[in-house]
């Protein structure tokens, strides 16, 4: 206000000095006229001249004073009022009264100010409304992300957010969550598959053990029943030995393959663990960023909104990154599934081969025994010393039993 009164005082001073100078000039002109004419005039006419000059001067003074009161201050006070209103607007009072009934330039200036103020007020209200919206959306998002962070993968963000950046964010996040949910579902399904495959594997192994036991018994039976024809026995023994050795060697190779496949599986499982951990981190971080975005939004003015945009952009990038991790998980899961299928297939193939080989051997043994019986009965050979028939039981995986 002191500045305003300063402006006013300086204006009044300038105006006063101007009027004073003009008054001095008018008086000088009057004195000039009077002194020029007075010597030629009679005293009566001279006094009339003086009277006239004085009255003219007084009328001049009255006119100037009227103008000073009416126009000078009016124009100035309209400006000071406008200055005062502009200050009020600057201090945040957007309802400052800018009404005027004037139709001159100053009235126009008032109306321009009022129009500017209205636009400003509209913008500010819109921004405030958007900020509230932003805050509300951010807090809703934050809740959803919290729930997701706690493990509820079915939650999704509302994609109908009025602010584009938020809607983009929600879309990206939801897409990421869709993939994550799908991937986790697949991991679960895969785990079931592995369990089933393991069951099959153990069943097959049991079966192959039982088959080995049968082979062993058959061999023992043969050894027990026939104490004769050492040559023939030796031949049988050789055949069985050779067959067992081949079988065991093959089997060892296949088992190694299976073990490798399972090792590979476990490694990949570890990798899945790492990735899951990463996803969890990302979810937490996304959450934090969304919270930050909410905080930013709460103090948004013009520049702050930009700041929020940056945060939202970051959250979006993070979501994209997470999405690509999820893609990676999918790829790995596919690999694991393929690996498991290979492993299971290899085990099944191996088991099938083993069983068919066992069957063949048993059939062979039966044939050989039959031949042996026939030879013995035909030759009627007397007692032959007992021969130690040895089968590498251990190589067949059967515990030694005596």
């Amino acid at each position: 206000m002191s500045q305003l009164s300063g402006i006013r005082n300086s204006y009044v001073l300038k105006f006063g000095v101007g009027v004073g100078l003009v008054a001095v000039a008018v008086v000088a002109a009057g004195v000039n006229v009077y002194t020029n004419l007075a010597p030629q005039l009679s005293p009566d006419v001279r006094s009339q001249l003086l009277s006239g000059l004085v009255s003219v001067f007084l009328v001049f003074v009255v006119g100037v004073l009227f103008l000073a009161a009416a126009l000078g201050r009016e124009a100035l006070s309209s400006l000071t009022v406008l200055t005062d209103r502009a200050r009020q607007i600057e201090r945040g009072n957007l309802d400052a009264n800018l009404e005027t009934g004037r139709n001159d330039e100053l009235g126009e200036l008032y109306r321009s100010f009022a129009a500017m103020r209205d636009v400003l007020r509209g913008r500010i209200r819109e921004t405030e409304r958007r900020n509230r919206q932003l805050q509300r959306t951010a807090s809703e998002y934050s809740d959803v992300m919290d729930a997701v962070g706690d493990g509820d993968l079915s939650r999704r963000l509302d994609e109908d957010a009025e602010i584009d950046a938020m809607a983009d964010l929600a879309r990206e996040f939801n897409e990421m969550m869709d993939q994550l949910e799908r991937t986790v579902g697949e991991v679960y399904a895969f785990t079931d598959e592995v369990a089933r495959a393991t069951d099959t594997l153990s069943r097959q192994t049991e079966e192959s053990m039982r088959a080995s036991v049968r082979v062993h018994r058959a061999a023992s039976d043969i050894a027990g029943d026939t104490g004769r024809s050492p040559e023939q026995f030796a031949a049988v023994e050789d055949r069985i030995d050779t067959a067992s050795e081949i079988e065991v060697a093959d089997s060892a190779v296949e088992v190694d393959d299976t073990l490798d496949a399972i090792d590979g599986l476990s490694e990949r499982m570890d990798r899945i663990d790492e990735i899951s951990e990463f996803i969890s981190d990302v979810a937490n971080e996304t959450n934090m960023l969304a919270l930050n975005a909410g905080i930013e939004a709460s103090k948004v003015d013009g520049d702050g909104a930009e700041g929020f945009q940056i945060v939202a952009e970051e959250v979006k990038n993070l979501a994209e990154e997470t999405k690509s991790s999820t893609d990676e998980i999918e790829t790995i899961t596919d690999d694991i599934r393929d690996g498991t299928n290979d492993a299971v297939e290899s085990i099944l193939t191996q088991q099938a081969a083993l069983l068919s080989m066992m069957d063949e051997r048993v059939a062979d043994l039966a044939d050989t025994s039959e031949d042996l019986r026939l030879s013995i009965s035909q030759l009627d050979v007397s007692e032959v010393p007992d021969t130690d028939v040895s089968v590498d039981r251990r190589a067949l995986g059967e515990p030694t039993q005596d």
Partner: protein
Amino acid sequence: MTQPSVWFGIGAAIFAIGVVAFLGFALTRGDIRSPYYFLPPATAAIACVSYVVMTLVEVGIAPAALTVETVRYVDWALSTPFITYYLAMLAGTKLSTRAGAVGLNVAMIAFGYGATVAGGLLQWGLFAVSAVCFVGLLYLFLSTFTRAIRDAPQTSRNLFVSLRDLTALIWSVYPVAYLLGPGGFGAMGTADYSFVVVTLDVTAKVGFIGLMLARQYQLDTFVGAGARATPE
């Protein structure tokens, strides 16, 4: 040389125009029952009537007891208190202040009239007392009234300040004119003095009305505030 009657006649005509113009405004745009609207034309109407009478006095068809001086001072004694009261009302001063200001105003005119009819030392003594009354009135205008309106809206203050300045500045010329006129040092003759006084009267009263007509939008703020302050 132009006769004073011509100036008086012109003055009466200007006052009549002022009264009609303000009444027209008050009736169409304002509220004639409000003192904010009926006081200014009332003041001008008094002046108009007095100037008609002065013209009649000058042309010699009025009662011989009436002189121009008497009619002029009766006019001032009636009309200027209205102006003072109006300013006090605009400023929103207390009733006691308004009464004091009006009393001072009437005293100033009365002592001034005394000075015109007295002679010698008494004339100057009465003139000095009248001048003191005027200084007191100026103090009320510039200090007391202005303090009272300090908290009013800027537009209201604006109109008050303009009217206050007009009144204070123009009224200050009256004693100067009196001193220079035939009753004082005699630098001006009666006719020129009459001309100057007509100019002063017209400026002080019709100028007052003209200013209000030019700022009618600001007068509304007073009427609104007055309506709020004094519920009916």
